[in-house]
């Protein structure tokens, strides 16, 4: 098989992707700072969703505790920076190691003891919540009262120390998202990607075919965790403050997984589209409901919109949109 031909995108898909990239590159030049901050939120959600999509969308193991890896990445990079002045990029690598090891350990423990399905999902929540409470009492990183990065000017762009404007973070996250898109596209065309999909579709059959199911499931979790932690490190340097109760929150885990499910679980572009849909929806609800002095209106509309999407497009918005646009995202 010629690798080049197999990895190439169909023409319409390539065109659509190019348009998307150009639009995203140009956007910060024409929109105001509020829109940029919303776009940053969207890109964070896309990237986390893409990372989560690897373990759940491709390898079929439902993880509900990905806030754990966001938190490990964020805290590792931020603590090394504030305590010893370690460069964020090196701290990020340390975070990748910590989170990747945590992901591999949790996966290995679970799968070795044949914990699967719903039990695995709840175990991932348990580890995330357990770690959140531990960090609440972990004095070296500030405990429950939080860890703060020295605030610097929000202008300019100091890439080495990751200090700069939201626009700088926007471009960094755009690069990260496109990088994740490329990585997953390539992985899916490699042996490991096919193995993951085989495990997702029928684990016993995959095992019978001689696939080392345990090893590939652990690999999916470790990769997903490591990728998530990179986003976590950027989050720490973007927000400049970290509290265990928000960084490791179960609410964050749920946010991470909602976008890819809405967009289309197990598709390449689904997490990105889902992030756009959900974040825009949330912002629209906020501005619409701000006219009314009523608690809970925003959440109510958000919940109703989720219900509508899961009722109308249970497989996600991207597969539907893709069919409308006539784009064949290479077979999944």
């Amino acid at each position, binding site marked *: 098989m010629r690798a080049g031909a197999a990895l190439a995108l169909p023409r319409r898909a390539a065109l659509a992707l190019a348009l998307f990239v150009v639009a995203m590159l140009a956007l910060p030049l024409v929109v105001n700072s509020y829109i940029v901050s919303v776009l940053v939120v969207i890109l964070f959600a896309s990237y986390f969703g893409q990372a989560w999509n690897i373990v759940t969308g491709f390898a079929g193991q439902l993880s509900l505790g990905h806030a754990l890896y966001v938190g490990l990445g964020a805290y590792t990079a931020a603590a090394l920076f504030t305590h010893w002045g370690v460069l964020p990029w090196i701290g990020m690598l340390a975070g990748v190691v910590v989170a990747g090891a945590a992901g591999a350990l949790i996966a290995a423990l679970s799968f070795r003891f044949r914990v699967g399905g719903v039990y695995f999902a709840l175990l991932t929540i348990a580890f995330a919540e357990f770690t959140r409470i531990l960090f609440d009492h972990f004095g070296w990183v500030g405990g429950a009262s939080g860890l703060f990065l020295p605030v610097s000017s929000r202008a300019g762009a100091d890439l080495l120390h990751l200090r700069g404007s939201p626009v700088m973070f926007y471009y960094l996250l755009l690069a990260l998202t496109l990088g994740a898109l490329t990585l997953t596209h390539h992985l899916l065309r490699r042996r490991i990607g096919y193995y993951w999909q085989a495990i997702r579709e029928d684990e016993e059959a995959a095992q019978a075919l001689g696939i080392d199911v345990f090893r590939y499931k652990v690999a999916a979790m470790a990769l997903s965790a490591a990728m998530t932690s990179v986003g976590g490190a950027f989050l720490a340097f973007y927000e400049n403050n970290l509290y265990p109760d928000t960084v490791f929150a179960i609410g964050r885990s*749920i946010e991470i997984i909602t976008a890819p499910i809405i967009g289309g679980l197990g598709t390449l572009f689904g997490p990105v589209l889902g992030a756009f849909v959900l974040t825009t929806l949330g912002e629209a609800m906020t501005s619409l409901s701000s006219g009314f002095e009523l608690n809970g209106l925003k959440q109510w509309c958000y*919940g109703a919109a989720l219900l509508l999407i899961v009722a109308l497009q249970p497989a996600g918005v991207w597969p539907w949109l893709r069919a409308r646009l006539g784009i064949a995202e290479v077979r999944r």
Partner: protein
Amino acid sequence: MLYLNIIVAGLLTGAVYGLMALGLSVIFGVIRVVNFAHGEMMVVGMYAAWLIASRTGLDPIAALPLVTAGLFLLGYALQRVLINRYIARPEHEQFLLLLAVATIITASLLMGFGPDARNVQLDYAYDSYQLGPLLLDKVRVLAAAGAVLGVAALWAFFKLTRTGKAIRACADNQTGAQVVGLDVKRLYAVTFGIGAACVGAAGCLMLLLIDVQPYIATDYTLLAFIIVILGGLGSMPGALLGGLLVGVSEALSGFVVDPSLKSAFSFALLILVLLVRPQGLLGRA
């Protein structure tokens, strides 16, 4: 002696936890759907009891039958209208559906009652019973007694009534149940209603022990998960055992270590059990 008192208090609270988790366990055991809106349903029960208590002055325990019946209808309708379409769908779609339901419930409660904590004033709130060396809070004893009665009623329903037996048949073999002519759709709706009723009754009893506020729901959804997994998803005695274990573990760790660490101990217990005995303490392999 102090420790014995704390353990007993934990057991009493744990009985209410057990009743709450039983609802989750029954729903999963029969319909195979994880009810991610379980804590939210309990909070609905708590607000219903609070509303009745504050309007009519009725004790939450006296309001319990009414609230339980209301929650049964809510659960029945929810299963019939919404969840039934998703029982054969992938886990993540069910998750999203129930997440949407949970979000709407919490938002509705926020709209109706606001974010402030509410409680009921009981004239016996500080009474206690002296039993040899044991000193038992009256509210805790009442709550636990209510929970034990609830569990007993449920057990009798599943063992003695035709509907209860039919539901157990559905849980054992859905196709077989359909073949012998059981109305599986209706039985599933009854089951979800029963699960909701359990958690509604538990909500009334919890109102004796804690204040109610819309945002506590997630914590109790998680707590219910911990309990049923400890005991074994789908096992009724397991849910009760899990509830008692978590009650004691919370009480002890809150006293010996630090109240803010009590849920860390519950999660540690869960991780330990999942790794040593993944099917839960009383679950079938």
